[in-house]
């Protein structure tokens, strides 16, 4: 089998694969940014004095964390066009699904990060005459995010792998692009092995980077 491994097909399909990787990276970046922004909001709601906000955020996180990502993707893929009354294309549905889904996971990381900052910092901020909001924004969150960087990046690697699941709605990400070539040219072994190698190299490079960062950041 290895003897007739066809490297030619990989070179020939390079443009398709690169386009796919573009979609994969686009999804990853938007879901990270959206997930962190919305996740921070969820974390602040969770830690809020207002019971209602804390309750809503808690149930949101529980529900998304108990549901498989594929089911969430299907939800938005089928439901978004019905709700807004016109087709908007798979990419937008999937982007919404990933952002909302990842926000649930990011909010847990961010909540832990905020809680890792000692309480005396809040008192210090308030004693200096800052408002609650200012204390959170200028004192707590910057420290919290600094503590969280390695975990946030690890979650980003998980997210990068998770984007391959858009295959189920036929969005042409890296894996789906490779799959198209695999089926079209009957080169299943070559294409899937290549896909695995590429994902592996990117993820392992990412996790080595995170480990290095962790050593630098650890106090």
């Amino acid at each position, binding site marked *: 089998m290895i003897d007739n491994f066809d490297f030619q097909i990989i070179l020939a399909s390079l443009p398709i694969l690169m386009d796919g990787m573009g979609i994969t990276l686009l999804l990853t970046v938007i879901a990270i940014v959206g997930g962190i922004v919305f996740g921070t909001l969820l974390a602040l709601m969770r830690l809020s004095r207002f019971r209602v906000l804390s309750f809503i955020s808690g149930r949101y996180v529980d529900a998304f964390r108990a*549901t498989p990502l594929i089911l969430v993707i299907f*939800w938005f893929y089928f439901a978004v066009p019905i709700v807004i009354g016109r087709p908007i294309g798979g990419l937008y549905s999937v982007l919404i699904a990933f952002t909302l889904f990842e926000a649930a996971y990011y909010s847990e990381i961010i909540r832990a990060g905020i809680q890792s900052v000692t309480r005396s910092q809040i008192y210090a901020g308030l004693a200096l005459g800052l408002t609650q909001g200012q204390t959170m924004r200028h004192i707590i969150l910057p420290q919290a995010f600094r503590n969280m960087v390695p975990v946030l990046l690890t979650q980003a690697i998980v997210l990068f792998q998770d984007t391959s699941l858009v*295959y189920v709605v036929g969005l042409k990400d890296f894996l789906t692009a490779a799959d198209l070539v695999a089926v079209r040219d009957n080169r299943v072994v070559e294409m899937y092995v290549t896909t*695995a190698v590429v994902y592996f190299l990117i993820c392992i490079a990412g996790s080595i980077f995170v480990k290095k960062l962790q050593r630098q950041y650890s106090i």
Partner: protein
Amino acid sequence: MEMKYNWDWSVLLCRDGCVQPYFDWILSGLGWTVVVSFAAWIITFTLGSIIGIARTVDQPVIKGIATVYVEFFRNIPLLVQMFIWYFVVPELLPEDWGRWVKRDLPLPEYWTAIVCLGMYHASRTAEQVRAGIESIPQGQTYAGLAMGLTRFQVYRHVLLPVSYRIIIPPLTSDFMGIFKNSSVALTIGVLELTAQSRQIAEYTFNIFEVFTVATLLYITVTMIVVTIMRHVEAKVRIPGTIAMGEKP
């Protein structure tokens, strides 16, 4: 903006006069989700324990193999691994085996999904087991060895009984991970809960009803498992640890 949608919950329950009793599909899907998850978990727990322990031993070769396993399975997306097991591995096996897997093995997609999920999650469980063992102060190992226990006995009677009790919460979330990730098996044709609900959604267009039911089923099973595990955890909790103080 007006939402054009006809709610019809009866679609799921209709039997008389309906060609397809759709709720049966959902139940069958849930059944397969549970079966595949449990079977995969057995592989995960066994293999994950072996690899986790191997990562803590003194032999560099064994440690190295275990590390390679963990890095390998952790850094390739589950869906890619699913395709590799299903489409590539049978091609790489000796010809007779490959033919057996492709032709004679009953329910090949189900077996593939179980092996794939089990081995993928073993890399995560291995890390939990390793962390559990490493969280025990070295002094305990030395004490065991000083008392004349062999390395094996130290693991068997000192390190493992304590570390498994510590890592029950992360092991539970690993199981929940398998349970949710079993949905990835739909890509190779396993008709589990998510696959069945998508099928019903495509046939009936009553997507809100069917996805609501599927989501609630996932949440319900999660809640059941979490509740059971909380009891188990309370039962085996080690007296004197911080966790003990949190008991309500």
